[in-house]
Every structure is written in structure tokens, then in C-alpha cells.
């Protein structure tokens, strides 16, 4: 009877302690990545190879999603703005929505589910098949050889992907607004240019995507490194990567928006 009461409490306590423990380990893990970054940046080939897998391979999903998001923004924006007789502001609306919020956030969510999950699965499997231990035995530091290149590849790729998402999205809005609906092209661009501020909107968007890149990639490599070395453990770690990344991206987005705008 007593066990009925204490067992949920015990589980709750265990979960809390475990979460704090992992947070501390993740912080130390980030410092270890930074400490071992020198070697991985000296051997650029490793980082470039990871940029190929994380960034270049994500291009298709980013570009296609960006195009459709821009087109949907164009359609939705037009129907709403037309009610107020200000359909001319469509260009500004599409660009601001993409640059400030949708570009960085959606690109980061897509990046987490495509590249982040792959990183976690790969590192988790390396751990399960004892490749990381084998490296240590051969005096190769797995932090410098496996983790740091992937971390930097993610941090470098994310702003580039977000910028491409924005450009393709603006083009999607142009396709719907100007080509399909028939707004004036000059008005579309001039409204955009007079309402979008380089420092306030473009630079802040890039800073956002850089922060998301650091967060998502850190979560991905950490979950892989911390995975339970079994098939089920690797699959659970991959799931955790996507879920945690999504929550962290949205929470960080709120914090950054509150600071910036």
C-alpha cells in the first residue's frame, strides 16, 4: 500500500535528478567540443565532409518547403490584406514574416528532423558498435574526430539553409502575388524594401538561425553520445533529438524575439 504512494514519487524524483544530471553533462560536453575544436578545424576535410551530409543533403527539403511556405504566405496574406484594401503591402508582409520568424524557425525544425536525427543515429550506432571506444584505444580522440566536426558543420550549415529558405520563400510569395494574382511587381519589391530593415530584420534573422544551429546540433550530437548502447536506445535517442530540438527551438525563438524586436 505504501509502495503505491511512494513509487510515483520515486519515479518523479528519479526523472528530475536524471534531467538535471543530463543538463550538467551536456554543458560539460559543449565545453569539451569547444576544447577539441582546434584539431577539427585544422583538419577541415572532416568538417567539410559533415557540411556535405548535414547541409548539402538538406538543400532539397529546405528549398521545396521554403517555396511552398512562401506561396502559402502569399495566398493567405493576399486574401487578408485585400479585405483592408492594402494588398500592396503583400511583399513587405511575406518578407517580414519569413525573415523574422518562419525562415529561421522552420528551417531549424526541418534541419533537426532531417540532419539532427541522422547525426544522433550515426553517433549512437558508433557507440553501440564500440567504434568510439576503439578510437580511444588507438589514441584517436573521438571528441575531436567524430563530435566536433559534426557540431561545427551544423553550426555553419544552419544560417546558410535559413537564408536560402528565406530567398526561396520570398520568390514563392512573388510567384503567387505577382505572377498568379497580378499585383504590380514594382510595388511588391518597393514595399518590401521600404519596410525591411537590414540590421533589424535580416541580421537578427541570421543571428536567430545561428543560435538555433548551435542548439539543434548540440542536442543531436549529445543525444547520440549519451544514447543507451542498444538498438532500442539508439532509436529512443533519435526520437528525443527531434522532440527536444523542436521544443528548444520554439522556446529559444520566443526568448530571442523578446530580446530583438
Amino acid at each position, binding site marked *: 500500500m505504501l509502495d503505491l504512494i511512494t513509487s510515483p514519487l520515486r519515479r518523479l524524483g528519479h526523472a528530475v535528478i536524471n534531467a538535471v544530471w543530463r543538463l550538467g553533462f551536456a554543458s560539460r560536453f559543449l565545453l569539451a567540443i569547444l576544447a577539441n575544436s582546434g584539431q577539427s578545424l585544422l583538419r577541415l*576535410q572532416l568538417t*567539410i*565532409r559533415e*557540411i*556535405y551530409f548535414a*547541409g*548539402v543533403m538538406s*538543400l532539397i527539403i529546405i528549398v521545396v518547403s521554403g517555396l511552398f511556405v512562401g506561396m502559402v504566405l502569399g495566398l493567405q496574406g493576399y486574401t487578408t490584406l485585400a479585405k483592408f484594401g492594402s494588398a500592396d503591402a503583400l511583399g513587405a508582409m511575406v*518578407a517580414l514574416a519569413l*525573415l523574422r520568424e518562419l525562415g529561421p524557425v522552420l528551417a531549424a525544425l526541418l534541419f533537426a528532423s532531417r540532419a539532427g536525427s541522422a547525426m544522433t543515429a550515426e553517433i549512437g550506432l558508433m557507440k553501440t558498435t564500440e567504434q568510439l571506444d576503439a578510437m580511444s584505444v588507438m589514441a584517436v580522440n573521438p571528441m575531436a574526430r567524430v563530435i566536433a566536426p559534426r557540431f561545427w558543420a551544423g553550426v555553419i*550549415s544552419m*544560417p*546558410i*539553409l535559413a*537564408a*536560402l529558405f*528565406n*530567398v526561396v520563400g*520570398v520568390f514563392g510569395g512573388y510567384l503567387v502575388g505577382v505572377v498568379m494574382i497580378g499585383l504590380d511587381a514594382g510595388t511588391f*519589391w518597393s514595399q*518590401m*524594401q*521600404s519596410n*525591411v*530593415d*537590414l540590421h533589424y*530584420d*535580416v541580421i537578427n534573422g*541570421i543571428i536567430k538561425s545561428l543560435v538555433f544551429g548551435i542548439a539543434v546540433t548540440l542536442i543531436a550530437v549529445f543525444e547520440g553520445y549519451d544514447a543507451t548502447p542498444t538498438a532500442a536506445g539508439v532509436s529512443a535517442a533519435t526520437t528525443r533529438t527531434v522532440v527536444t530540438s523542436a521544443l528548444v527551438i520554439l522556446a529559444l525563438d520566443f526568448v530571442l524575439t523578446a530580446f530583438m524586436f
Partner: protein
Amino acid sequence: MKRSTIDLWVGIFVALGIAAVTFLSLKVANLTPQSASQTYVLYADFDNVGGLKVKAPIKEAGVLVGRVSDIRLDPKTYRARVTMNIDKQYQMSDDVSASILTSGLLGEQYVGLQQGGSENNLSAGGTITITSSAMVLEQLIGKFMTGFTGKDASK
């Protein structure tokens, strides 16, 4: 170290990223900030600036000639002192008048300049003395209402 196809793809990827940021800076945002060297400063004092904001356009005959760079309360006169950066290619006569106007029915407010007939120009750092303040809706309604009651009383 040998070159590989991966390097080529990563090169294309990074170049695309640089091109995207350049496009966003030049085409989407307006990367033509007027540097201080191409503008000179004029001041104007208003009784009420309404909803005028920093960076609001300054127009003459509907053409953009500068931007508002600062709005503050003058501690001596208790009037709003508006600092304006005017493009160097436009000279203002010393009897130019400045008024705060609204673009469209719900648009933002901007400063409209109207040249006078004087031959002399304002030098940099000069103050525009002839100003008319922003229309404040409450005051307009107040005037309208008092006019209304005044008419009633005279009947």
C-alpha cells in the same frame, strides 16, 4: 589532401548561402543607408509632433529629401525639437515651412516641407521657424463640438 566531389558540392552550398544573404541585403532590405557625409542637419520646433517617429520620411513636393533622426523635448521651451537629416543635394530657403502630415487615412506621419520665396538658404544646423503641428484627433473633435454648441447658443 586531394580535391573531391564533396568539396565541389560544399563549395556550391556555401556560395549559394553567400548569394542568398547578399540577395536579402540588397533586394529584400534596403541597403542604401544615407551616410552622414551625404546629409546635413536641420532642426524644427513643433508644439506637438503627434505620432511622428524617428526614421520618418521628410518630403518636399512628395519627394523624399531626408529622414527624421531624433525627436526630443526642449527643456527650455517645452516644445518638441525634431532633428532632420536632409540630403546634401537639396537646399532649403530660410523661410521654409515644416508641417507634420499623415500619409493616407491610416498611414504613418511624416514631415512635409514647403519652400518659401526667400533667396537665402538655411545653413547646416539651422532651425526651421515656421512650423505647423500634427493634427490631434481629440482636439479636432473638441473644436468641432464647441463650434456646434456655440451655434446652438446663438440661435
